[in-house]
């Protein structure tokens, strides 16, 4: 550590960091704009000026930018020096020359870094008397709003969008005091992480367009810590509500998981919660009924003794457990198709045996050679793609280290690195967004991808079985071997156990980390909980062993071909469905129960990383919507903790889950944690004990959070942070004050608990089931899923912004057979779909891609052989 004297007081700082980082980490108030912990220093805004002194006798000093100055041992600076304080105030004044001062109508108002920094710097009186420059704003699509007149030219947006996220359609235009940040022309931002601009921008240039449609100030929203439901990575979020509608999602920093950034599906998919397709009350035989009547119906049907349950990989552990308890374990079925359940079980088994360990997203960023086998991660687990983009900078970073360029000096490092990239190999059936950053790609059918994996493993370790020669295998093996922290990524997209086993072999042979991507937000949790296969449920009804089916948060039409599901639901005498949306399955149910989404319920998901994470109810809905575990659980479960205790007893493998977050009894300084910021308008419970003029805020038996602004002013642990706020820090950049060191772990601990770790002394033998090389078939195509960030996920497709961006369902083929855009008939299993063709020349011969998860293609089990014929 270095000792840095600030206004003559000694502070311990990390010498490999800059002074701004050090000062903020010490909790000192130093305003800044262009610097960002994830983006480093460039010295553009000149806001973080301090005065540096040569030694203790130097009284003159000189103004330096703290972000551009290393925290070297013995450095002496002053923040309070009058000259430098005046300089900082004048910088704000300069930044604000053209700023419209439209805070009352600006969506950023009340959580604006520019407001916070203006107050911090002390600038309060405008002396500039001339005209301001004005810009025309651009329509950037349905997610991000653009208001350039507010811009202060800090360059954060383009640095994030281009340098960090790899976008190519946002940049700075023109020069001097008229720099315009936008696109070449109006149009949808192409990058899948564009929503982070909303948080990266220190003022209201880029704001959340979905929030704009139902705007509420931060201080008027009620928040709860949440976990994203739109893929399996488990990014931490905070969800904000007002008047019974969910208003937005913001990032909840988790050092090990999502850090500062979310993907656009995760940020903007939330609007399904407000969807008109929501089920808001129990409906029995087409008629609304009371909750009591609905419960009575469920009890009667279960009591009759011939009920079975089908769980869900997108429902919480608690909800699945409640159903399992209700119908008894032997009648509980996992909600995943058999093959998919098998894949997830296989992943878990591999990771438990070890020695490969699954990395956190943070650890992925630190890996220096990446091999992706079979996954289009940008579309399947988008946030991981952003981590991989950072990982490929690791090897080139050695150049900067060799030149002794501080790694936080962002432009200096980039000038030295130019576009050097570390090794990234991508083996997928079709081209992916990350290809542009890849060292080499391999295109093949799933079996050939697996064979490549086996070949790489063999090239790394001759003891691993070999499928024979593979041209790229040697190069990949060499890159993984040379790396300090190699990484292998695979998942369920190819629906191939061989791919998963091949990835395991590579990771083992390379002593690499192994990241598996599960299909849905709680696939891993559901697989650990276990249950009978889904096919067994179908069979039980078919064979008359069951007459009542209770389906938890699961649209079976996405799990099996329509004909099979139809037969199943038509045969069952009683169908009870719990769900958020009026799904095709729910529409077939006799009783539909309105199941709470992540915003209206509490629960736990287990992410692909094996991290159990709790989400908390954001608001109490003014209708019958309730957590599924409340609908299904026994009367003795009074709150979430009772479910967790029961689950630990029943399922010791999930005992640790209760530690994912503090229990409802947890208090900070004797008080609950407020869901609402201090200034929530018109809502106070201060006198509720002696007054009846206002309704009491709802009580929360499930968590240590209160449904009001009353509670502790202290910072809660990571799992319980509803919003980031600190005195003087109203914007989300208040997160600085929650970290032990800026950009580091949360002071109260990062949320979640890992429940999958490799066995201490272990390791598995190499897998040896190498599939035969793919053989195209005459007149048939192997249909593989093509995933889309916007569209392939069930729930987010009900969010208007996401739906607008979703691609039309289509079949993709290599060039030759069909014309682009031509309508064709795709026949697989017993279904035929009339959809357009998209030409993707990179698809291997005999392989075609089918839009994954997009109606009407939802029930197709992929990969699957099918026929494609010209439409008559």
């Amino acid at each position: 550590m270095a000792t840095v004297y600030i206004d003559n007081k000694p502070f311990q700082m990390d010498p490999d960091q800059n002074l701004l980082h050090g000062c903020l980490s010490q909790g000192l108030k130093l305003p800044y704009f262009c610097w960002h912990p994830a983006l480093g220093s460039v010295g553009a805004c000149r806001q973080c000026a301090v005065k540096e002194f040569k030694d203790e006798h130097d009284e003159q000093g000189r103004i330096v930018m703290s972000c551009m100055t290393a925290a070297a041992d013995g450095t002496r600076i002053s923040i309070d020096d009058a000259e430098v304080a005046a300089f900082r105030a004048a910088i704000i004044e300069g930044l604000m020359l053209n700023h419209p001062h439209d805070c009352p109508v600006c969506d950023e108002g009340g959580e604006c870094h520019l407001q916070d920094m203006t107050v911090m710097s002390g600038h309060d009186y405008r002396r500039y008397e001339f005209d301001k420059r004005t810009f025309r704003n651009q329509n950037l699509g349905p997610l991000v709003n653009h208001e350039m007149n507010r811009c202060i030219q800090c360059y954060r947006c383009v640095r994030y969008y281009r340098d960090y996220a790899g976008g190519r359609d946002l940049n700075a235009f023109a020069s001097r005091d008229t720099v315009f940040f936008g696109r070449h022309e109006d149009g949808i931002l192409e990058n899948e992480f564009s929503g982070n601009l909303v948080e990266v921008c220190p003022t209201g240039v880029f704001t959340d367009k979905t929030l704009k449609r139902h705007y509420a100030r931060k201080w008027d929203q009620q928040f709860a810590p949440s976990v994203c439901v739109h893929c399996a990575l488990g990014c931490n979020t905070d969800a904000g509500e007002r008047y019974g509608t969910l208003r937005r999602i913001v990032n909840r920093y988790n050092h090990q998981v999502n850090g500062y950034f979310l993907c656009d599906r995760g940020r903007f998919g939330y609007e399904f919660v407000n969807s008109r397709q929501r089920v808001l009350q129990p409906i029995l035989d087409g008629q609304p009924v009371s909750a009591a009547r609905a419960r009575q119906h469920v009890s009667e049907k279960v009591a009759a003794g011939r009920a079975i349950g089908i769980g869900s990989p997108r429902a919480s552990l608690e909800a699945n457990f409640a159903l399992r308890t209700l119908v008894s374990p032997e009648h509980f079925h996992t909600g995943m198709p058999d093959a998919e359940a098998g894949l997830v079980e296989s992943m878990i088994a591999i990771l438990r045996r070890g020695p490969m360990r699954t990395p956190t997203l943070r650890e992925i960023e630190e890996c220096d050679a990446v091999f992706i086998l079979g996954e289009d991660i940008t579309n399947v687990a988008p946030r991981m793609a952003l981590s991989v983009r950072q990982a490929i900078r690791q090897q080139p970073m050695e150049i900067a280290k060799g030149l002794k360029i501080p790694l936080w000096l962002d432009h200096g490092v980039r000038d030295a690195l130019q576009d050097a990239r570390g090794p990234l190999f991508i083996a997928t059936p079709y081209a992916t967004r990350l290809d542009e950053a890849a060292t080499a790609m391999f295109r093949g059918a799933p079996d050939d991808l697996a064979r490549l994996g086996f070949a790489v493993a063999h090239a790394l370790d001759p003891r691993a079985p070999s499928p024979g020669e593979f041209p790229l295998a040697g190069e990949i093996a060499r890159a993984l071997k040379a790396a300090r922290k190699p990484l292998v990524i695979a998942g369920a997209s190819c629906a191939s156990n061989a791919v998963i086993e091949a990835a395991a072999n590579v990771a083992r042979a390379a002593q690499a980390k192994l990241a598996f991507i599960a299909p849905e937000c709680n696939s891993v949790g559901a697989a650990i909980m276990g249950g009978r296969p889904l096919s067994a449920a179908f069979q039980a009804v078919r064979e008359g062993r069951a007459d009542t089916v209770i389906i938890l948060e699961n649209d079976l039409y996405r799990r099996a071909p329509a004909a099979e599901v139809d037969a199943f639901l038509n045969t069952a005498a009683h169908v009870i469905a719990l769900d958020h949306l009026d799904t095709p399955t729910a529409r077939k149910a006799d009783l539909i129960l309105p199941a709470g989404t992540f915003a209206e319920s509490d629960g736990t998901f287990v992410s692909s990383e094996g991290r159990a994470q709790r989400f908390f109810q954001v608001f109490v809905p003014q209708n019958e919507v309730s957590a599924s575990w409340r609908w299904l659980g026994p009367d003795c479960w009074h709150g979430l903790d009772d479910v967790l205790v029961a689950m630990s007893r029943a399922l010791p493998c999930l005992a640790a889950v209760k530690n994912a977050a503090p229990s409802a009894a947890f208090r900070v300084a004797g008080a609950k944690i407020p869901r609402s910021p201090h200034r929530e308008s018109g809502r106070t419970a201060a006198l509720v004990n002696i007054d009846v003029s206002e309704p009491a805020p709802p009580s929360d038996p499930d968590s240590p959070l209160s449904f009001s602004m009353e509670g502790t002013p202290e910072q809660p642990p990571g799992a319980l942070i509803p919003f980031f706020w600190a005195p003087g820090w109203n914007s989300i950049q208040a997160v600085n004050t929650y970290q032990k060191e800026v950009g580091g772990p949360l002071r109260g601990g990062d949320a979640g608990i890992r429940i999958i770790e490799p066995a201490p002394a272990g390791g598995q033998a190499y897998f040896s089931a190498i599939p035969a090389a793919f053989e195209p078939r005459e007149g048939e195509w192997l249909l593989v899923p093509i995933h889309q960030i916007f569209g392939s996920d069930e729930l987010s497709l009900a969010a208007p912004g996401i739906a607008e961006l979703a691609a039309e369902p289509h079949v993709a083929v290599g060039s030759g057979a069909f014309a682009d855009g031509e309508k064709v008939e795709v026949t697989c299993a017993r279904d035929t779909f009339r959809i357009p063709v998209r030409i993707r020349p990179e698809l291997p011969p005999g392989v075609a891609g089918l839009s994954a998860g997009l109606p009407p293609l939802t029930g197709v089990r992929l990969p699957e052989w099918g026929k494609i014929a010209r439409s008559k």
Partner: protein
Amino acid sequence: MTVTAEKPLTRDMCPDGSALGLLAYEQAGGYQAIRRILKGGMTPQAVTNEVKEANLRGRGGAGFQTGLKWSFVPRGKDAPSPTYLVVNADEMEPGTFKDRLLLERNPHQLIEGAIVAGFAIEADVAYVFLRGEYSLAAERLSRAIAEAYERHYLGKDILGSGYALELHLHLSGGRYICGDETGLLNALEGKRANPRSKPPFPPVVGLFGKPTVVNNVETISCVPHIINNGAAWFRGLGRTNDAGTKLYGASGKVKRPGLWELPMGSTIREILEEHAGGMRDGVKFRGLLPGGSSTPFIVEEHLDTPMDFTSMPKVGSRLGTGTMIVLDDQTCPVGMTWNMMRFFGRESCGFCTPCWSGLGWAERILQSLEEGLGKPGDIEKLEFQTKMWGPGTTFCALAPGAADPLGTALKYFRDDFERHISEHRCAWR
């Protein structure tokens, strides 16, 4: 090359204004310097040492020791490759017209200098970064480069020595900030010409991330003469400790505006009165900017100062490019300052706040003064802005270059600024 007159840079130029052709250049002793180093067995180190010994300082205005700059380039087997030499021919400093003369009238001298410098830093590729408006220079330089390639002064295996240097001419897309050496590197990479972080410095991380030396046209043009005549000779050319000759110029209402190659350290008075012929009839001297728009004003009392890198700071100014802009009593100092701030504001790259925001503000205040709309307090606002543009407070030297003339204008011509406010008009309009 034997030098009889002490004007090595300009001596051989044709009086008719045409370019000195290859043959004429060779006949005058041209391309002997590269023969000396390439055939005479001088090592890059020796060439660098000679230039260091000669105390050649950067003629672009910063005055950095050229040989020292060259010595920062990593050498040896493990050194990054390729290494680049960039000739900064982006002459855009207002009031400066010296490099144009060297480019248009003696392009081979520049090319030979580039080869010598390239050899010294073991460069593989050299670029001449020429401002886009210098079309005559572009034409003449292109031809000279082609001739030099034909004669094997450029390209592979120069004069059979094994040393190879490619030299390309790049025409700028405009913008004053390209004259900043790192802004120039970004421009040459096809990017926006925002200056870069320093460190890393260009000799270590330069063009395309590789070691790069950026030298001014006049600097490079001096180099062949140092090799031909030795460091001691070059040092002897100067009147003061700053060595060599210097292209001095004068513009404004002087009798004979022009450009003269004189010993380094000639006094301002000598240049102004002897060479420029003093002020035009009917106008009186009030002050001057000694070396382009970004140098501080000097006034009557400073006229006997030697125009060199060391002496000028002693009177609160800088040598800059050595081409002085003279202010007379018939010209409004406030208007002149406004003109310059408009220039700096327009040419700000838009990267750092004090520059993009402060220059535009200062420009508008000065405009309002000129239009008779000035208010009490405006002078103080301008003074405050100059403090915002100190070295270190801004990202590069552009805004500090604006602070110098503005700050000294406020100092020397304060009465004029005050009268603009009190009389609500510009007395010169």
